[in-house]
């Protein structure tokens, strides 16, 4: 650009010719940011403000709602629905742990052992996304059907007596129990665990494994001291990507559970769409958001991932 202005034209018009391109250049980043900012404004900030105001309104559907700064709605909501809150955290937590237990070995295999099958296995991991979330969850109704082969096998292996003792199942059935909901959540959110785990494992330099072996670490020690610590960013983002949506989920509980397995998502859904008590529903949404934010902050602090390269 400067070469253009330095060249032939007389001295006087030169500064004028110099300015416009520079100014445009300085603004370019903002123009590029604009779509994103607009998107966030319209689809995130505005609804959030709207919900915040709804949560402190009083009134009824017939008379209309008014902002009365009725903060007691939060307390009332928490008081009335704390079991569902607790259940959400428990179910989502169990599903996250299960996802980690199932997903880590798979991600490890894909990253280090799959060789030329790597892409194929990755496609298989993502393949369920090609069908509807609802249909996949409904399929679990058939899988876990009473007297079906899965439940029969679990029963004869005495798995069900363990889960009965844990309060996860009830008698000889799985459907409509907490276990069914946790199974559904685990299944539906597993790819969200595998993908970040895979990404962080795949980034680990294979020579670090060789170096650890060279320095007297057995394969197990190599995993404990090198591989796992280096995959922590993946573990953290995987658990967050699983836990956060799972704790707000209501479809799995709705389709696979019963009234005794209602999660906070079910309550919000019914408050909004059936009972039409908007302030309570909005207050519950904010409570859920706050709870998740607090838990996530504590979790990230504890796992100390900001320290990792």
């Amino acid at each position, binding site marked *: 650009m400067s070469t253009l202005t330095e060249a032939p034209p007389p001295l006087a018009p030169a500064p004028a010719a110099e300015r416009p391109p520079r100014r445009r250049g300085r603004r370019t980043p903002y123009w590029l940011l604009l779509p994103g900012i607009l998107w966030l404004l319209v689809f995130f900030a505005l609804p959030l403000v709207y919900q915040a105001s709804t949560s402190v309104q009083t009134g009824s559907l017939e008379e209309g709602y008014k902002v009365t700064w009725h903060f007691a709605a939060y307390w009332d909501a928490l008081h009335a629905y704390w079991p569902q809150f607790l259940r959400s955290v428990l179910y989502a937590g169990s599903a996250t742990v299960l996802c980690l237990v199932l997903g880590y070995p798979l991600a490890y295999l894909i990253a280090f052992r799959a060789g030329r099958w790597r892409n194929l296995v990755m496609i298989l991991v993502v393949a369920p996304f090609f069908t509807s979330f609802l249909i996949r969850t409904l399929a679990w109704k058939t899988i876990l059907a009473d007297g079906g082969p899965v439940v029969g096998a679990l029963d004869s292996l005495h798995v069900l007596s363990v889960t009965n003792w844990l309060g996860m199942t009830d008698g000889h059935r799985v459907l409509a129990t907490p276990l069914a909901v946790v199974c559904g959540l685990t299944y539906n959110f597993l790819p969200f665990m595998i993908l970040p785990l895979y990404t962080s494992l795949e980034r680990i*330099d294979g*020579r*670090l494994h*060789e*170096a*650890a*072996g*060279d*320095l*007297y*670490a*057995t394969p197990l*020690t190599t995993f404990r*001291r*090198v591989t796992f*610590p*280096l995959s922590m960013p993946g573990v953290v983002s995987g658990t967050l990507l699983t836990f956060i949506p799972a704790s707000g989920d209501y479809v799995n509980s709705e389709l696979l559970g019963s009234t005794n397995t209602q999660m906070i998502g079910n309550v919000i859904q019914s408050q909004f769409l059936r009972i039409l008590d908007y302030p309570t529903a909005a207050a519950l949404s904010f409570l859920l958001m706050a709870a998740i934010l607090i838990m996530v902050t504590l979790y990230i602090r504890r796992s100390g991932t900001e320290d*990792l*390269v």
Partner: protein
Amino acid sequence: MTTTTTTAATRRTGERGDVRLTGIGKTYGSFTAVHPLDLTVPEGSFFALLGASGCGKTTTLRMIAGLEEPSSGTVHLGEQEVTHLPPYKRPVNTVFQSYALFPHLDIFENVAFGLRRRGIRSVKKQVGEMLDLVQLGEQARKKPHQLSGGQQQRVAVARALINHPKVLLLDEPLGALDLKLRRQMQLELKRIQTEVGITFVHVTHDQEEAMTMADTVAVMNAGRVEQLGPPTDLYENPRTTFVANFLGTSNLLTARTDSVTGEDLVVEAGACTLVLPRARCSAPTTTGGEVLVGVRPEKISLTHAEDADTIPDGRNRVTGRITSAGFIGVSTQYVVDSPVCPDFEVYAQNIDRDPRLVPGAEVVLHWNPAHTFGLDAAQSPLAGTAEDAAAGGEGTGAR
């Protein structure tokens, strides 16, 4: 350093000793990376495996480390056979090409890694001493990515050496450093090796590096050891054209054996008659047979053709015309077009420069016959040169 502890490695294997490779080879499918070879690395020596990329030197090193399973043969460390031991059971440590430092551990923990794995509790003193040896005592609590390349390199050396291995394996450890730092680290590594007295096996493609550091150099080419010996011996008495060209530069002329007189061999190259010691000819010396005659560029003196009669008798002479002269400070490198060799290289020390020696000048090249060597003419005279490497599709040249 050596006096601080009797090392666990030594205790485990009982006696100390040499690294012995017997008939060791490696094939990947139909590709032979290393042809079965025998190699003995004497205890306490600084041994270099030198060769272009893909010659099998790293594979050989990895088989000693246990990172690669040999297809045939055995590996002995002293009296102990380790051929099928996994790496974590071998009293051997490696300095990896890219250092492979653990990014999540600080320098102290990186260096302490091997000690901790062997269940040693009080590592502080040993790690401190080791970091002092490599002059990194101040950096103990930094993460690897906060260090420079040269510092990371020293951490990698410290991390391996602290275990007092029977053998320290170095896989192109200086490849990622710039020239000046590389020179400095070469001396540093040599100093450390002398200080700790551990056997070093060093893999490199840099002939200068191998010659500066090692007591013994094994030149590898296409999965075979071409020649093995002290650097001076390899340089002065190459036995193959590959070694002659890969280590430094050689002028090789095709000649015909004329006669054998006593200790000398008289050969004819074109119109020139050259003499070389019979002991320095590794080719069969039958009269009338072909032989490759070699001489190093720095052994040759250059005299202007007008002063040809001042050259003492008994020297080998070749006439030619200078085609280029490159001044590089300590010496001037001439290329001379002569009837026996189209690009005869001559390195002349810049002591008394004859101003007439410019491109186009007619000159006589002459050298002491004792500095001439003979090679088997059945080999390609280009083996090991940059042109050869390019023709073979291997981009990394030796120089």
